[in-house]
């Protein structure tokens, strides 16, 4: 009897090969693999959404919950039905309230998270970089903390896009901001360079993993 692992391995091998064929150029094999992937993914995601989101949070309480739970869940049930109206172009307006609730709650959560999770802590960390009690040497605090501070400030200035119009009619940032932004551009370039190296490392690791899979499939790898 053919095991699931073998079937999985064969399918994975062929799908990987079909995708790798894109290195030669776009071809039907690549397209077939991609379309199958999208279809399977969508079907799987829909099943997951139903069983791991809608069922435990909505349907199961409606069936087995208390009266109060059922009454309270009537509202999200109606909202969900309205949201499903988004599928129909004629009834898409009915889904607007549901989307509004989603967006409203999401905005509030994003605001709270950004303020409490990033803004205050990161600003505090930038300030605390000069705390001599937390660093090994004052020189490190001054040099490294100063560089970090400069990097933060200049990076923020780099994304400051307010500008004025010059005499020639061109749009340009103000002189001091322009200088600061140039320094910020250097920091941004360094950061993106580090990120690029990380992305390439991730892609390279994925390639290695696929090659390793091929080797395992053919009994070549370890």
């Amino acid at each position, binding site marked *: 009897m053919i095991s699931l692992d073998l079937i999985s391995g064969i399918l994975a091998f062929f799908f990987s090969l079909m995708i790798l064929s894109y*290195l*030669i*150029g776009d071809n039907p094999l690549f397209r077939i693999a991609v379309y199958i992937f999208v279809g399977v*993914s969508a079907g*799987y*995601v829909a099943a*997951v*959404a139903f*069983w*791991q*989101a809608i*069922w*435990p*949070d909505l349907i*199961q*309480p409606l069936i087995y919950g208390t009266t109060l739970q059922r009454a309270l869940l009537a509202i999200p049930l109606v909202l969900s039905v309205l949201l499903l109206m988004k599928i129909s172009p004629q009834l898409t307006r009915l889904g607007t309230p549901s989307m509004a609730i*989603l967006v409203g*709650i*999401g905005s509030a*959560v*994003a605001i*709270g*998270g*950004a303020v*409490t*999770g*990033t803004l205050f*802590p*990161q600003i*505090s*960390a930038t300030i605390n*970089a000069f705390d001599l009690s937390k660093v090994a040497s004052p020189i490190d605090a001054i040099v490294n903390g100063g560089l*970090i501070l400069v990097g933060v400030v200049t990076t923020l200035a780099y994304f400051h896009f307010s500008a004025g119009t010059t005499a020639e009619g061109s749009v340009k940032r103000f002189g001091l901001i322009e200088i600061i932004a140039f320094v910020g551009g250097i920091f941004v370039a360094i*950061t993106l360079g*580090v*990120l690029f*190296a*990380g*992305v*390439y*490392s*991730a892609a*390279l*690791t*994925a*390639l*290695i*993993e*696929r*090659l*390793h899979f*091929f*080797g395992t499939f053919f009994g*070549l*790898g*370890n």
Partner: protein
Amino acid sequence: MAETIKCPVCGEVNPADVEFCQNCQSRLQPLTGPLKGEDAPLTPGQVPTKKTTSELEPILPQWLREARQQARQSAEEEETKKEEEQKTTPIPRAPDLLAGLASQNETEDEETPDWLTNITGIPSKRKKIEPEDAQVKFVELRHEEPAETSSDQATKEPEQSGLPAWMAGQEAAPEKDELAEWFAQASGSAADGSAAPVQPAPSQPEPSQSLDSNVADWLKDLDEHTASALAPAQTAPSSDIETPDWLKNLDSSAPPVEQKDVEPAPSSNVEIPDWLKDLDKSAPVIEKAPAQSQPEISSKVETPDWLKNLDANATTIEQPSAQNVPVERHPVETPLIRETAETKSEIPDRLQAADASSETPPEAKPESEEAASTGLPDWLASLKPGESQPSESNQSESVFTSEEPAAPESSDASAFTRESLLSSDAGDVFGAMELPDWLTSAAATGQPSAGENPPSAAGEEIAPAELPSWVRAMRPVEAAMPEPSAPASEGAVESSGPLAGLQGVLPAIPGAVVPSSKPKSHSIKLNATAEQQAQAALLEKILGAETAPIPMKASSVVTSQRVLRWALSAILLIVLGGVVFGRTQIFPLPSQVPNETSAAMRAVSAIPDGAPVLAVFDYQPSTVGEMEATGSSLMNQLLLLKHPRLAIVSTSPTGAALAERFMSDALAARNYQRGTQYVDLGYLPGGLTGVYAFAQNPMAAMPLGADRSAVWQSAPLQGVTHLSDFAAVIVLTDSVDSGRTWIEQTALERGASPMIIVSSAQAGPMFLPYVDSGQIVGLVSGLSGAAGVEQANGGLPGFVRRYWDAYSVGSLIAVALIVLGGLWNLILGLQARRAQGTR
């Protein structure tokens, strides 16, 4: 100045001092002298005009506005004189029409007439059509019950169908070039000049469409010309027509003219604009000619203020009360206005003013009847020949032809001379087109009967004129007209006066065309100057460059790029495949363990044995290889050392499946059992909202596990009700957003529980600030980060060691290719730039 002057029409050589051609009676001398104000300068009113006329302001060209300003200044000088004249007339002084235009505001847009709306394209509130139409019709026709002529019917029918007035006219005579015909007729009648001691009227460059915008200049000229020698016209000095100031001023400056059979219309209810009342005040006494079988004028028509001013400026006018005399008005030649006593219509003020200040010859009355049947706008109807020089109605020579009219150089007079305005067949010209009320009224008042057209008017022709482009754009109906049948001669460029700079706007020969029953249609060609053509060519060039297809890259370039990609692919696949398949372990793992990785290991070691730990699997299948290699080392260490109770959750739909894969493959050595040692809570939807909800109340957010079991009562989650009950939160993610979400949304609820991030190398650098701020206690990023953890596992075999050679080789290949290829491409790029700079 030459001793002789050559007639531009017939070529006959005439003495230089002759005003008309001895052969064809064409006008040879310009009319600019009197029009310039030598006799009677323009004296527009100073009081702001009423709304009815001020909406014309937006379409005025700049030069016209400037001219208006000049007119205001000159009017101030004459103000004292005008005030005295106003005392003699009961109609108060009305504001200048153009002053009203200047003071136009948005609310005045509501009163924009249909024709103006159609011309300008500016949407305006619709006028009250029903009463307005009736009044307009009266003003146009000068009848209470307009004669059922064919042209009248043609005017009526479109009105009933709700069409704009000018459209109605167009429908009635669709093939007519109304403006051209009107000018032709107007000039023809003026050329006759039997009763009017004035010169033949040159043509108007843009008759009705440009009326609004040309008001300042040509009215100024008209005023001056009125003072010189206007033909007798029928006026209604006591008419209620409201005349704008500018027409009042015209009248006020006009000297007394010959009073010949002028019929005053004291009981007229026509509303005259203020500026026309001013004209009435200052106008001399005019006798209205007895009506000659003319239809009765509907006195219900509302007249704009400026027409009333015309009446107000007019002097006493004799008006036969028993006859229905059409009010023949001319906005410039005020004596032309004639109105019956029983006129009830509300005529625009400016028309009334024109009436009052004009003299109407008795011969003009029959002409007004013809005008009345044409459905003309009021002022144009009154513009029709109030003078005793009715022109032939069949003059059809185009004024608007593309060819240059053969106007003499001396014909640089104003287009709006009284002759042109008073031409008897102006009504015919405008029969197919409705003009603004004030223009129609003016035409109607000064229109003599067709039967009295002097023979001299026959065959007169208006020389083709060249319209400014903005005027052409405003013409509503003639765009699709065919080419003129008879080519027009070139016209001279006007050197002075308000028409300075325009070419061929004044007719050289008022009547040189054989009358025909069917007016000819004339098209307007774009007559661009050389500069305009050059600019157009430049624009065309620019557009051509924009729309030109971008040339495809040379096939060699595309091929080389493809070859480069193939080469890179081959290098990576061959080299890395060889390393992977060769099971080499040549490259040592890095000895240096990053600080954040060391912190992560310390945090793991600090977790109590058997404590609940939340593991978040938030990575995509695309990075499963890297994440399993990176995470397995730390998780192996954790499971091996601390035997935690794991709770797995994921905000990715595939996260639960990847977690199972991780536990069954990457951590197969640990042999963790689901349900007893770990639970899978499954998919947590909602992104950051779901994470926040989970942080606030994990049991409410995910009441069931991935297998739909009550996981919160299971062994791994015993005693866990809040997020802070977990001994640690380990987030395995390949996304900055996902990791940031968990950091941000759980910051307040995590309490003392440490958070450790195991991330892909692509997201690791962005988590370093959170490590630095202490929000996460440790970070394992990528293979290089996991290498330190794996080394700390005491030689436990892991993915890192398995991948490391290939990883190092791949990184070094990338470094080499980027450096070499980058330098090579940098040189090529610089060379290309130099080449471009050299070009």
